[in-house]
C-alpha cells in the first residue's frame, strides 16, 4: 500500500513541480539572483571607487606638498637673488661714488697745484720786475746794469726756494 505506484499522481506531481519551477524561475529566482549579482558588482564597484578616490586624494596631497615645497624654494631663491642684487648694487654705487670722489679730489688737487704754480710764476716775474724797477731807480747811476741784473736774478731765483722750503 505504502509503495503503490500511482501514475496519475506522478504525472500531476511532474506538472505541478515543473510549473512551480518555471514560474519561480522566471519571477523569483531570476530577478533575485540577478539582483544579488547586481548588488555584488555595485558593492565591489563602490569599494573600488572608494579605493581609487583615496589613492587620488593621497596623490593630490602629495602633489600639494611638492608644489608647496617648490614654491617655498622659489621664494627663498627670489629672496636670495634680491638680496644679492641689492648688495651688489649698493657696493657698485658706493664704489662709483668713492671713485668719483677720489677723482674730484685729484682734480681739485691738480687745479690747486696748477693755480699755485701759475701764481708763483706770476709772483716771481712781478717780483723780479718790481725789484729791477726799484733797484734801477735807486741805483740807476752807479751800477752796471747787466752785472747787477744778474745779481738780482740770482737773488730772486733764490727767493722762491727759500719760501717754498
Amino acid at each position: 500500500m505504502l509503495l503503490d505506484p500511482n501514475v496519475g499522481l506522478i504525472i500531476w506531481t511532474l506538472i505541478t513541480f515543473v510549473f512551480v519551477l518555471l514560474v519561480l524561475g522566471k519571477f523569483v529566482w531570476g530577478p533575485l539572483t540577478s539582483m544579488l549579482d547586481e548588488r555584488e558588482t555595485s558593492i565591489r564597484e563602490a569599494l573600488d571607487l572608494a579605493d581609487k578616490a583615496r589613492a587620488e586624494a593621497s596623490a593630490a596631497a602629495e602633489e600639494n606638498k611638492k608644489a608647496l615645497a617648490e614654491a617655498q624654494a622659489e621664494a627663498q631663491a627670489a629672496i636670495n637673488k634680491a638680496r644679492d642684487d641689492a648688495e651688489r648694487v649698493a657696493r657698485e654705487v658706493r664704489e662709483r661714488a668713492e671713485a668719483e670722489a677720489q677723482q674730484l679730489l685729484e682734480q681739485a688737487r691738480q687745479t690747486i697745484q696748477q693755480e699755485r704754480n701759475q701764481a708763483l710764476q706770476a709772483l716771481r716775474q712781478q717780483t723780479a720786475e718790481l725789484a729791477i724797477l726799484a733797484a734801477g731807480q735807486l741805483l740807476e747811476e752807479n751800477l752796471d746794469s747787466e752785472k747787477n741784473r744778474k745779481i738780482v736774478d740770482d737773488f730772486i731765483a733764490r727767493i722762491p726756494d727759500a719760501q717754498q722750503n
Partner: protein
Amino acid sequence: MAAAAEGNNEGGGVDILSHILDSHELHLGPLHIPLPHLELFGIDMSITVHLVMMWIASLFLLLTLISTTKKRGLVPSGFANAIEALIIFIRDDIVIPNIGKKDTPRFLPFLLTAFIFILACNLLGLIPFGATATANINVTATLAICSFMAMLVGGIRHNGFIGYFVGLIPSGLPLWLMPLMIPLEFLGLFTKPFALAVRLFANMTAGHVVIISLLSLIFVLNTVVVAPASVIFALAIYLLEIFVSFVQAYVFTLLSAVFIGMAIHQEH
C-alpha cells in the same frame, strides 16, 4: 496528524497507515470533502489529498515568493532578506562547490525550487489537517526523476551523449573487468535517483508513523494514564520532524547538486 485522535476503529486497534496513505477525501476535522475522480487517456488522474497539499504548498510558495520580488531595490528588507539568505546559502554552499561557478546559473533554479518545494511539502504535513505529500513514494520518485534529468542534461551537455555514457566507466581499468563494470556503472546511474526518492519518502513517512504510533498508544491501551507520556514523546518527535523537514530538503538538494556535479565533472 490532528485527526490522529479519531483514528481508532472498532477493533480497538489503530489504522496508522490510513493517516499516511494518499486518499480521495480531504479530512478537515469532522468535515470530509470528496475529491474528484478524473481519467485521461486511460490513466487515473484523480485529484488526491497529496496532490491538493502540493498545490497548497505551491500556491503558498508562489504568492509569498513573488510578493518578495515586488519591492525591488538593491537594499533588501524583511522577508526578502530571508529569501536572499536562502539563495546565497544554496548557491554558495551547495551549488557552486559541487557544480562549479560556470554551470551554476543553469542548475540553480532547479535546486532552489526543489529545496523550497520539498521544504514546503514537508512542513505542510506538520500543520493540522495537512498531509505530507513527500511521504508518498510517487511524489518523491517524480522529484528524483527531475533530479535525474538534470544529471543527464548536465552530463550530456558537458561531455556529449556518447562521451557521458563512456565516461561513466572509470578510465584505466583492465579490459577483463568491463563485463562487470559496465552493468554495475549502468545500475549506478539509477541508484542515485532511487536513493534520493527512497531517502526522502522514508524519512518523511517514518516520523509520522512514530508520532501516530505514540498517540495511538492511548487508544490501543485504552487508558489515559499513558496520555502524558505519549503526548510528550509525540511532541518531541514533532519537534524533531520540523528539524528533519529542513534536513531532508537540504539533503535532497545537496545530493542532487553532488550528482549533477559528478555527471558534469566525470573524472572526479
